[in-house]
């Protein structure tokens, strides 16, 4: 997406560069999908697919923000924790009697604010993003538990339209939101100066700065945008589950999001990344988790599978970048 415009010819066949780039993930996705479909009758049924799509919608929203951020050479380990906080805040506001739209707006705004704070620590105080966001992730995990006082807080029928509603009677509203977010971020990465500046900063920050590109402002915006989308993710979580509870969001969500982005081929050191890759990564992880469920494999293997997929993807990305 970043550079090659013409298709590359190999073995006499014209192959689209996107296909070359994402061929590996796509192949693994198809293999696992086919395998699961053969072994389980439930996999390809409507209700199961709807369920999977609702689950991965949240991951996709967070991963879209992280893709843009990582392209600029940043990283945010607190996205999962931000989602945990905002899902608690939404539930508390609603039970306290706030209107749905107000609760949602405040929660999303809070996410953006936390992102801005992360960005400030990283850019103005020059703390390594890894350390800064790990610290805020820890703080926020504690705060998330405090907010819901360690208990489940039900929101009843509130936000049901968001969590279970469907557009045109088939597409879950959550999926629509995820698609809109992904399309928007994809356009930002391709067509806006802000998005292209993220590539330039990730590729060579000094060169970008010397060209007059507003590096600090861009980074602040990127962290804010990441936080905002994580806040939205938190709202989507509480809408889907109908309650805020301890252990929702947090570290597991965070790791899934980071893994999806890395599997999608975004470089950890910045400078390159595509949203298509990230979406494939999100789909792959969603399908793997679902397949382990359906095939009734011991849930402890879930984390092992997540880690293994991540490891393989990281090695494959490394080999691919070395070939050039």
């Amino acid at each position, binding site marked *: 997406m970043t550079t090659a415009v013409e298709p590359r010819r190999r073995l006499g066949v014209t192959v689209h560069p996107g296909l070359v780039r994402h061929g590996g993930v796509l192949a693994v996705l198809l293999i696992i999908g086919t395998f699961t479909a053969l072994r389980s009758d439930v996999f390809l049924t409507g209700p199961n697919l709807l369920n999977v799509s609702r689950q991965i919608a949240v991951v996709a929203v967070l991963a879209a923000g992280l893709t843009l951020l990582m392209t600029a050479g940043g990283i945010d380990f607190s996205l999962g924790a931000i989602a945990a906080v905002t899902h608690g805040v939404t539930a508390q506001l609603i039970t306290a009697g706030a209107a749905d739209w107000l609760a949602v707006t405040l929660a999303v705004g809070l996410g953006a604010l936390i992102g801005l704070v992360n960005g400030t620590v990283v850019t103005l105080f020059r703390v390594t993003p890894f350390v800064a966001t790990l610290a805020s992730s820890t703080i926020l995990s504690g705060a998330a538990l405090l907010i819901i006082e360690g208990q489940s807080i039900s929101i009843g029928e509130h936000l049901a339209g968001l969590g279970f509603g469907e557009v045109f009677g088939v597409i879950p509203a959550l999926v629509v939101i995820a698609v809109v977010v992904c399309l928007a971020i994809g356009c930002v990465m391709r067509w806006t100066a802000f998005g292209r500046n993220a590539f*330039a900063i990730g590729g060579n920050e000094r060169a970008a700065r010397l060209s007059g590109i507003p590096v600090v402002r861009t980074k602040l915006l990127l962290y804010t945008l990441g936080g905002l989308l994580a806040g939205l993710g938190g709202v989507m979580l509480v809408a889907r589950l109908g309650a805020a509870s301890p252990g929702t969001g947090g570290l597991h969500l965070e790791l899934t999001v980071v893994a999806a982005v890395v599997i999608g081929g975004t470089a950890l050191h910045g400078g390159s990344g595509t949203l298509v890759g990230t979406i494939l990564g999100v789909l792959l992880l969603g399908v793997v988790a679902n397949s382990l469920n359906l095939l009734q494999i011991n849930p402890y293997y879930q984390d092992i599978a997540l880690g293994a997929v991540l490891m393989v993807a990281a090695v494959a990305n490394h080999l691919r970048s070395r070939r050039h």
Partner: protein
Amino acid sequence: MDLTLRGRAEPAQPPAHTSVALELRGVRKSFGGAVALRDVGFTLLAGEVHALVGMNGAGKSTLVKIISGAYPPDGGELLIAGRRHGALTPRRARALGVSIVHQQRMLVPELTVGENLFLGRMPLRLGRVDWNRVHTDAARLLAELGVEVASRTTAGELGPAEQTLVEIARETHAGGEVLILDEPTATLGGSDAARVHRLVRTLGARGVAVVYISHHLDEVLDLADRVTVLRDGRHVTTVPTDRMDLPELVRAMTGDRLPQGRPDTGRTLGEVVLELDDLTAGTRLDGMDVTVRAGEVVAVLGCAGDGQSQLFPLLSGLRRPTRGRIKVAGREVRPGSVTAALGAGLRCVTGERLVHGLVPELGVDENLALTERGLHRPWLVRWGRLHRAGGAARTRFGVVTIQADPPVSTLSGGNQQKVLLARWLDSGAVACLLEEPTNGVDIAAKADIHRLVDDLAARGTAVLLASADVDEVLRLAGRVVVVRAGRTVADLPTGQVSRDELVALSVGGTPS
């Protein structure tokens, strides 16, 4: 043209008594369908200094990367010490005695020279690093090679010439019979380059075969025993340097494209545009005063790494001066601010294109558009317009690529340099700092770039040139400020000094 034929018909056969250290036969290499080397043959004799020359993008770096195992060839044979080898890796090439010093310095700046020399194979005693031996061995190795550098200095404190020497020493210590040097003197001035030459001669005398890539043709004719010329990925000729002179070599490299020098015409100078007033950066630049008028080219000359290398960080706004002022068109530029420098119309072109200049993973056209985007800060990127503007700039600056819009990192060194200049010089400069503008550029491109700088001045831009290259200073500048150990030692019109006087001034003679 007939030279090509002579080269083909009568390849300089190695004399029977010298052994062949390394041989390539019919080597081919392409990148994504674009051919970088076609059917190249190359023979390296033990103990010879073999220069490899050619224009930017001719395939020199690609050839030595194949020899050192960084790229696998698409076809052809590679023989080392008479044995055929299939796919080499850098590690295997090293084990076979082939080592390479890349153009970018690769020492670990925080470690001492001794540690750098023995990195990965420190002498041990009782399982611990024997520090005394590290430094005595290092001192002995450096003394044997005639490199005057103390083993206990940290590598970061060394000047560029010394870093190059230490790297060469490290590679030879590994015991290689074949040493490849990719443009070792590209960034070095006269006396520093001479130190590298001495070391190369020492190594040649010891029986090490040296492949020496350079765009400095005088140096090549002086230093090398034989020279191989590549053009557009083809082997043109291999001849002993004593059967070759400069014009002949240039013709072999360029084919029909002859580089043309332009006689310096008198320039009319305007108002003072750029003023450096008592500019100081720690101990490395001490109280520099320079004024540059519109349409004037003023050079600041010093040995590699001397005071002139401080100008880029100061003028571009990367670093704040400890003392002194920078003024553009009579107005002081806020110190330490990139935006203020750009806003004042100051354009600074770095000599380290990959560190401060280009974004390697992005395409050529987007790199070309970066300064515009930084200056005007639009909301949207118009790709169609961007590619059209990029195409026009490439034609104007003679950037040659074999693919449509490849990542800038895949361009040859000289073409990267042209992209960098195109990006900065096209953006409405009032005053301009050029740091080593022809670093790693072939002679034709060098002439092009010189002409571009002439035009830039003719359009009324004040040009400040920071350079370690005396010939370039004499070619381009109307006035030269010589710095030594950070101090200004002379400020003269170039018409009044000879080349030798300038060299003497910059290394420590007295002004005549």
